[in-house]
């Protein structure tokens, strides 16, 4: 935002021109010299050097020429120097030849003098008076005095006038302004302010020597005052404190008006328009100078919303040149539109920022302009900028972008709102066409440039023409950015579907596999129908599987995972990397593993028994743990039938069977004796196999043995615990399996279950030689004869074993007292002791 004007800027536009003398029907022989002008609403007052007041009515509509309403002579010797409309008391205050006059707003009655003041050098109305109250105040400088005159409108159009002195002595006052409680006074020395309440005065600053006439101008609807020094406007607040940077005008102002947000300055032969906020020069309205004199500018000071400015040429000598030009503020929207029409994006954007900070444009319109900018930039192939603006628009609907991605008609065609914007760009069409057309335009521009013709095509493109492929990728990446951001918004369901589906579509176009899979596997609104065959064709099977999975299309998802696992397994991917076979196997394994993991994720929540059992096999082939997790998942609504599971799981996969049964029994409290028996059998078989293996390969590395032993122990522990805990299995069947083995403790447990006390005791006492356990068992049986039996076993272990006297003595020592001595004797005798 430099201080150099874009020459094309039109902040104010001409509305009408009037020749006051001609309109008022004055003969050319009585020339008019405009000395003062004022606007009040649509009423324009002019005051002349010859003591005339003229009133015109302006029209807002273009081409409607102003109407002449009235001419009121106040006296040929009273040249008018200021006109101040006082709408709240229905008066016009006129300063002429040092006296104050009051007129009615329509100049229908003769003027009356206000008081008997003479030599009034300056007058100013209170800028912030409440417009609804029928009173107002003016500050008046008379001689060395500063007065306030309070006017109040009474019934019957009577005016009550009170005059009070604010301060004295005050030097030769040149200009006044009254803002808030402060009356700003400009003298040849400098600026000061006086409190309108108690008259206390403070100097603000003195002006340098030989500076022009000092001027004060209230700004921003009476919150600030501009004090002029040479061509510099120092803006101060109501307490005289500086507010904001000084405005620097390119001429010495003769007259200043504010048409918010602009400050309009009249010089000798031109009127300049500046932006109030930063002092930037915006526009120059030149006038052909036809004699000595100045230009007068006037706006309706009372309101911020007022749009009109009048410029009166007060050149003397040639009365024909005395003309009045009416200008109207060009709305923010029109100004922006004008720069967009010229494709001056930079200007449009800075205008937008400017109007935004000045509060001259609504929020919706800001969004509208961003969207409009986005479309224009898009068609100019400036995709990144375009999307930046799309994203700044709060009203742009994502569906408006869909036609760039997918050719019409499509599933979302009806969703796209038919917004016309400013008709500066064609309707959206597929990206490729936008790019092709844009490239043709660039070609043409290059050709024209060679021929020396200027075009609006981006210089960058001309000096470095882009390739089609680069543009396409850039466009897609940026639309992706847009769609990703749109996903975060609250969209209607169909629009969300469009966003996600088209996002996938674009990811695919750039083969952004990671993004595709991330989108497909997370919660998304993709329409599967639209993507299925595309993804299949391009081989994005994983994405498709994820998509099916996230959409609950389990069997389709699983079918793909199975195919993928098989393909990886079959080494179909081997050719992907030639070197480093390790890598391949890791890759292969992990890819397979991922397929199995993904499939198992789906199956864990599925209650579809057939589907689960159909896929369990291949998953188990890759990873038994996954298969087990599938079977034992508690995330499904309906449990699987154990019968079917057991029947369908490959009987070779003992671990799966075993873990499944364990889960059924331990976690699901299944009390079907059949499964208890199966579980016991499986555990027994495993334990036997382990013991067997150990016996066969035992005695390798110490550490290895340790862990092997540990493993066997834990297996046997589990088996023993189960055999003891469950009453539901068939001990005989189990016994059959372990009959030939060395699993004596297990056998003891089983016999015990079967009530074969004698065998139990034999095992405990003789096989395991655990006399403590044997005695314990006798205690459990709780009959004396059990001890007697045990004693018999100790004394005659058979199979050529020596009698176990120590154990026998211990038994007698511990339990002898409670045993029937006769029976003890009998045993001893039986064994011939």
């Amino acid at each position: 935002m430099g201080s150099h004007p874009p020459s094309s800027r039109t902040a104010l536009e001409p509305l009408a021109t009037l020749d006051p003398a001609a309109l008022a029907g004055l003969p050319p022989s009585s020339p008019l010299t405009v000395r003062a002008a004022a606007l009040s609403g649509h009423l324009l007052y002019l005051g002349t050097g010859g003591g005339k007041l003229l009133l015109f009515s302006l029209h807002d509509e273009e081409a409607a020429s102003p109407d002449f309403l009235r001419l009121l002579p106040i006296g040929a010797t009273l040249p008018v120097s200021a006109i101040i409309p006082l709408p709240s008391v229905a008066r016009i205050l006129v300063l002429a030849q040092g006296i104050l006059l009051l007129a009615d707003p329509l100049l229908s009655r003769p003027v009356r003098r206000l008081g008997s003041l003479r030599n009034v050098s300056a007058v100013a109305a209170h800028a912030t008076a409440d417009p609804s109250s029928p009173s107002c105040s003016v500050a008046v400088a008379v001689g060395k005095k500063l007065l306030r005159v309070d006017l109040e409108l009474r019934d019957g159009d009577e005016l009550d006038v009170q005059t009070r002195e604010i301060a004295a002595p005050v030097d030769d006052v040149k200009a006044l302004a009254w803002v808030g409680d402060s009356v700003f006074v400009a003298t040849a020395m400098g600026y000061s302010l006086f409190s309108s309440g108690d008259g206390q005065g403070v100097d603000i600053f003195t002006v340098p020597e030989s500076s022009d006439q000092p001027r004060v101008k209230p700004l921003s609807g009476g919150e600030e005052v501009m004090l002029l020094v040479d061509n510099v406007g120092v803006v101060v607040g109501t307490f005289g404190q500086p507010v904001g940077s000084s405005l620097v005008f390119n001429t010495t102002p003769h007259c200043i008006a504010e048409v918010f947000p602009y400050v309009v300055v009249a010089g000798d032969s031109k009127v300049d328009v500046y932006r109030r906020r930063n002092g930037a020069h915006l526009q120059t309205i030149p006038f052909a100078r036809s004699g000595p004199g100045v230009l007068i500018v006037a706006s309706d000071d009372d309101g911020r919303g007022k749009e009109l400015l009048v410029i009166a040429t007060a050149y003397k000598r040639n009365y024909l040149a005395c003309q009045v030009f009416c200008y109207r503020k060009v709305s923010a929207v029109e100004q922006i539109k004008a720069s967009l029409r010229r494709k001056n994006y930079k200007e449009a954007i800075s205008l937008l920022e400017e109007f935004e900070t000045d509060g001259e444009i609504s929020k919706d319109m800001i969004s509208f302009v961003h969207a409009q900018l986005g479309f224009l930039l898009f068609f100019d192939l400036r995709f990144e900028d375009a999307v930046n603006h799309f994203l700044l628009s709060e009203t742009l609907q994502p569906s408006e972008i869909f036609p760039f991605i997918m050719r019409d008609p499509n599933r979302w065609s009806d969703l796209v709102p038919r917004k016309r914007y400013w008709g500066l760009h064609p309707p959206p069409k597929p990206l490729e066409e936008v790019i092709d057309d844009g490239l043709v335009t660039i070609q043409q521009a290059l050709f024209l440039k060679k021929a020396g013709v200027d075009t609006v095509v981006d210089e960058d493109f001309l000096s470095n023409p882009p390739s089609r492929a680069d543009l396409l990728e850039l466009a897609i990446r940026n639309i992706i950015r847009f769609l990703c951001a749109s996903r975060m918004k609250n969209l209607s369901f169909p629009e969300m579907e469009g966003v996600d589906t088209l996002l996938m579509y674009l990811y695919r176009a750039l083969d952004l596999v990671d993004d595709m899979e991330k989108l497909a596997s997370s919660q998304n609104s993709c329409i599967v129908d639209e993507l299925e065959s595309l993804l299949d064709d391009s081989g994005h099977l994983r994405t498709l599987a994820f998509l099916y999975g996230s959409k609950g299309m389990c069997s389709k998802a699983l079918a793909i995972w199975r195919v993928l696992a098989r393909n990886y397994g079959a080494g179909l991917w081997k050719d992907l990397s030639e070197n480093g076979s390790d890598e391949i196997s890791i890759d292969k394994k992990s890819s397979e593993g991922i397929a199995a993991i993904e499939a198992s994720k789906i199956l864990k929540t599925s209650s579809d028994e057939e589907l689960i059992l159909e896929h369990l096999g291949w998953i188990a082939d890759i990873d038994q743990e996954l298969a087990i997790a599938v079977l034992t998942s508690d995330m499904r609504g309906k449990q699987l039938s154990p019968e079917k599971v057991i029947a369908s799981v490959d009987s070779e996969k003992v671990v799966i069977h075993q873990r499944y049964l364990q889960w059924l029994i331990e976690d699901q409290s299944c009390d079907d004796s059949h499964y208890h028996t199966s579980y016991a059998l499986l555990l027994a078989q495993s334990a036997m196999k382990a013991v067997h293996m150990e016996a066969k390969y035992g005695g390798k590395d110490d550490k290895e043995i340790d862990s092997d032993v540990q493993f066997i122990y834990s297996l046997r522990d589990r088996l023993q615990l189960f055999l003891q805990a469950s009453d539901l299995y068939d001990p005989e069947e189990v016994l059959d399996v372990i009959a030939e083995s060395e699993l004596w403790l297990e056998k003891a447990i089983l016999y015990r279950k079967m009530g074969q006390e004698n065998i139990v005791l034999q095992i405990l006492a003789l096989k395991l030689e655990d006399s403590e356990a044997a005695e314990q068992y006798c205690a459990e049986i709780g009959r004396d004869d059990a001890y007697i039996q045990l004693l018999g076993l100790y004394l005659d272990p058979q199979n050529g074993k020596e009698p176990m006297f120590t154990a026998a003595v211990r038994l007698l020592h511990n339990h002898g007292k409670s045993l029937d001595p006769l029976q003890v004797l009998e045993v001893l005798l039986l064994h011939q002791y």
Partner: protein
Amino acid sequence: MAANAGNKIRNAKLVLLGDVGTGKSSLVLRFVKGQFVEFQESTIGAAFFSQTLAVNDETVKFEIWDTAGQERYHSLAPMYYRGAAAAIVVYDITNAASFTKAKKWVQELQAQGNPNTIMALAGNKADLLEARQVTADEAKAYAQENGLFFMETSAKTAINVNDVFYEIAKKLLQGQQVQNPQGGMVLNQRPTERTVSASSCCS
């Protein structure tokens, strides 16, 4: 800003004074925008900037008045330094006359300004060593005598620029010399309005 949500932002009016061409605008541009332009346009009237600076866990919002320095507009200066919490008087180390002018500004501030204003003396264009006319020792001695704090700066190379402002912010926070943003004009007779005008000072 969001990070500072918890603590107060203190407003501090700061004014730059010194001869034309000593680099006042360049120092501000460097501090506020981190830029330097070889052909800085001459300031007319005064330019206003604001910039926040975090010191430990406090934030100072500087309201910076960059004055013109032309003799013709000397009479405007009091409006800008009146009520200032801090002033940076700038001279050009390659220009002895600008140092003399700087001393005049210091005197004026001592005589007319607020006694609590924190004053810094900045010897700018420290990158132009070969053209030096004012020695650092001389300036340092002067600063010490007058209770100013002194640094040689270069808006061009950024040397010591942020440091000057940071140092001022620190001193402000130590002395709690922070005051309302519009407290330019002192009108003893109207205390009520002054409070009203200060009401927007803190967030």
